């Protein structure tokens, strides 16, 4: 399975938890760190299990997540959705 990584913009995060639930690999969790708006924020807890499926990014209502994926074949498509 391809390796992936996500970057979460904690200042945009409102701690809604949708990304955490969407992740099939349980990579994300609430960090307990509040951002400047006073929200608890999501963070990458288990980066080694990320497959770069972008389910988190697709569901993030703040569009706060960027997703990276290791190239496997010749063509690598965008995550659609």
């Amino acid at each position: 399975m391809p390796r992936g990584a996500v970057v979460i913009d904690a200042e945009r995060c409102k701690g809604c938890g949708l990304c955490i639930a969407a992740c099939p690999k349980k990579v994300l969790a609430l960090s307990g760190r509040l951002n400047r708006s006073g929200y608890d924020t999501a963070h990458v807890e288990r980066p080694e299990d990320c497959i770069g499926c972008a389910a988190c990014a697709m569901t993030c209502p703040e569009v706060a997540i960027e997703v990276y994926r290791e190239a496997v074949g010749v063509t690598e498509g965008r995550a659609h959705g």
Partner: protein
Amino acid sequence: MSSDIAGMTKVFARPGSLTDARFTYCPGCHHGIITRIIAQTLDELRITERTVGVAPVGCSVFAYLWYRCDAIQAAHGRASAVATGLKRARPDLFVFSYQGDGDFASIGTAESIHAANRGENISVIFVNNQVYGMTGGELAPTTLVNQRTSTTPDGRDPKLFGYPIRFSEMIAQLDAPAYVTRQALFDTQRIRSAAVAIRKAFEYQLAGKGYSLVEILSTCPTNWRMSPLQANRHVADVVTEVYPLGDLIDRG
């Protein structure tokens, strides 16, 4: 951080057509997902520079802040008529309106139906979360039976206030519309399907095929008094029973 990303391709980023502004929506509200899909679709179709969005009154009154394109803020309920005037004046522009339950299905009922019936070549996004968000959680025409709202504190009694209105089904009765669909966003599969639907609606406008309506079942965690996750489940388990998902008509 960089060692995690080295050698990897970025496969998901904020769409270029989104401004840097932070959304004013509540945590977990689906408006942000829809906004992201719209911006992404404008990017994919490369039409941002000739797009004009029409913002409603409601939680998404600030919609004009989220996109890097021209926009008009319309009077409550009138976005479909404003989009009509805009598109008729400048058919070369890409025009979409973005409306909630009150705007599209209550005060805007006549404008919504007649823009569809005339087959105006516009794309209408109808965000159905069965409640009025901005004004404090009141009854909407789309509110479910027995649903508690601030103006139906004991639950919607159909004897007093009727039944949830299936507006897309009404619009689907008309001869003119090209595409009418109902989507949801409660899991990744639904989000993908919604994106495909929005893309189709936008492509139909570009091809001059006429009116498209994309109704999107959304959450309002704040006024439903649920967590965002509970709200998603509520759409999946309860709301879709009243408002079936899928394409109602596709004449493209």
